[in-house]
């Protein structure tokens, strides 16, 4: 992952940067739509958005339409929707008050717009390298996991806001980063760890400027905007906790309700190892557990690469965003890794270095979109 330029003019997207993702918006929509028609030939074409809305997507649709559950949960189950952070579904719900479209159609259109914005915003983080940029745009908008970013999941907003956080961090704009981090911390629980990335960047800046760690505490506290940024960055998280205090009487309901899903907290590396050695017994190349574990391993490998490059804010952010969910099991790990900007941007820059590798990777992304979308429509558990 590259740092943005200190001269903001350098990072301004040119016409190619603005147009290229549109090509992938079209190709991605076409591939997913054709996969839908192939998988469900008897379903009316107008059901396209509904057909792609699977697993947690249904929870987000309900949240956008009806908000948060009371207690006891009206549907008389112990799984309350407090587990899901509010920013993106509530944003879609608010837009829905103005634009009267079916929620899933509106959410899908907002997601595609957000995904497009996230790709364009990532241009500086990709080193302003057109091959890396093309791969990243293809991955988000037309790749095998593009349905996460173009239906109704929080991942797309998480990607946009993480991109903004790291753009601001790259320029040592602590307040800008804190503003994006505040929204990020209301988007997914791990978003709150962007605060740590800002703190690490401040430490690195202090060391780079002074050449010593001496007087670091006073030096950091002596920067009023940094101090303010530290308390702004987790604000979205705290606002949600305050809401749950009011709504349910339990500010940590988002965590407590996980009990209903049967999640067990354990050593993340034990989960990882057990996933890796869980060989398939149905003739498949890889089991679902192995796919999920390999996604986490990919994230960890990219984190090591970031550490070798001394990109410590991204390293700390990645470690928390990988290990905290992993401590509750491998579920959704592929989706979580797909939404990790430092991981996917690093991969895009690596694969974009060589012309031949770039061409093969781009082709692989586009072709695999067809097969993975079919697996998604078929309810493959590894994609949950």
């Amino acid at each position, binding site marked *: 992952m590259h740092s943005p330029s200190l001269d903001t003019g350098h990072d301004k997207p040119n016409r190619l940067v603005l147009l290229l993702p549109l090509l992938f918006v079209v190709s991605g929509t076409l591939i997913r739509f054709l996969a839908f028609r192939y998988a469900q030939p008897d379903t009316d074409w107008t059901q396209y958005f509904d057909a792609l809305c699977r697993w947690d997507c249904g929870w987000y649709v309900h949240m956008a339409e009806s908000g948060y559950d009371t*207690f*006891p*949960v009206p549907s*008389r*189950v*112990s799984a309350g929707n407090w587990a899901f952070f509010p920013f993106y579904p509530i944003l879609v719900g608010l837009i829905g008050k103005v634009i009267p479209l079916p929620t899933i159609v509106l959410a899908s259109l907002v997601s595609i717009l957000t995904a497009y914005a996230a790709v364009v915003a990532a241009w500086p983080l990709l080193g302003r390298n057109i091959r890396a940029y093309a791969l990243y745009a293809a991955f988000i908008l037309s790749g095998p996991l593009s349905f996460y970013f173009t239906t109704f999941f929080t991942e797309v907003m998480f990607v946009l806001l993480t991109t903004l956080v790291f753009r601001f961090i790259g320029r040592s704009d602590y*307040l800008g980063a804190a503003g994006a981090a505040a929204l990020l911390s209301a988007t997914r629980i791990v978003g709150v760890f962007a605060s740590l990335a800002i703190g690490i960047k401040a430490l690195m800046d202090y060391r780079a400027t002074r050449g010593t760690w001496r007087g670091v505490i006073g030096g950091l506290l002596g920067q*009023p*905007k940094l*101090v*303010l940024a*530290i*308390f*702004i960055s*987790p*604000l979205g998280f*705290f606002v949600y*906790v*305050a809401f*749950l*205090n009011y709504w*349910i*009487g*339990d*500010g*940590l*309901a988002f965590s*407590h*309700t996980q*009990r*209903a899903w*049967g*999640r*067990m907290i*354990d050593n993340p590396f034990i*989960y990882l190892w*057990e996933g890796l050695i869980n060989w398939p017994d149905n003739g498949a190349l890889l089991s679902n557990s192995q796919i999920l574990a390999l996604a986490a391993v990919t994230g960890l490998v990219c984190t090591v690469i970031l550490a070798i490059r001394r990109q410590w804010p991204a390293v700390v952010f990645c470690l928390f965003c990988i290990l905290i969910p992993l401590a509750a*099991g491998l579920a959704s790990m592929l989706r979580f890794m797909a939404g990790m900007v430092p991981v996917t941007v690093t991969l895009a820059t690596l694969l974009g270095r060589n012309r031949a590798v770039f061409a093969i990777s781009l082709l692989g992304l586009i072709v695999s979109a067809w097969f993975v979308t079919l697996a998604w429509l078929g309810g493959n558990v590894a994609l949950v």
Partner: protein
Amino acid sequence: MRLSDRSPLAIYALAAVLALAELAILWQALHPNVSADYRAYYIDRTTTCLPQPVTGAYVLGTELNFRSGGDETRELRPCGWSGPAGDGMHSVGETSRLRFAIGTPQPLTLMLELTGVTLPGPAKQRVVISVDGSKIGDIAVTPDKTERFTLAIPAKALGESGFANIGLDFPDAINPGKRVSNTYWRSVKLTAASLSPAQPG
């Protein structure tokens, strides 16, 4: 006025206000104000059964079929059941509950038709049965064998609420896999139940 134009003191004051607000929210989050049922299930984790509001609508003496395609029993099942399936209503967790409207407290007879699950585990599944929190007996259910169990409920075990809240605790509940939460452990399958006025004598 831009933030950069403000005095450092004003910025520190704003940061202090935010810090205090966040501390207050955190303090409140660490001291939840919730019902006993909520606390037991979500926070203390002392039960796997979170009772849901049900009417308990029931005519005394009616035998109910808990298999799929059988009687509609949702309003009698506050928690701890999964189904119905073709082989009955599966218990989930370490406790399941039933709730029957009974009107005036009187001596009753509870009939349960149960089958033990066939997962690897003990030779018998013990089931401790209670009414309104008072134990009325325990039974042993054999895996893959359907049996009827009859238990007497004395009138004094019933409260004045007009309902009989039947608890089934499963001390031998089986963990169906590695690192599966006890909210998903398995024990018995319920295929039929009734609550009838006790025969005199």
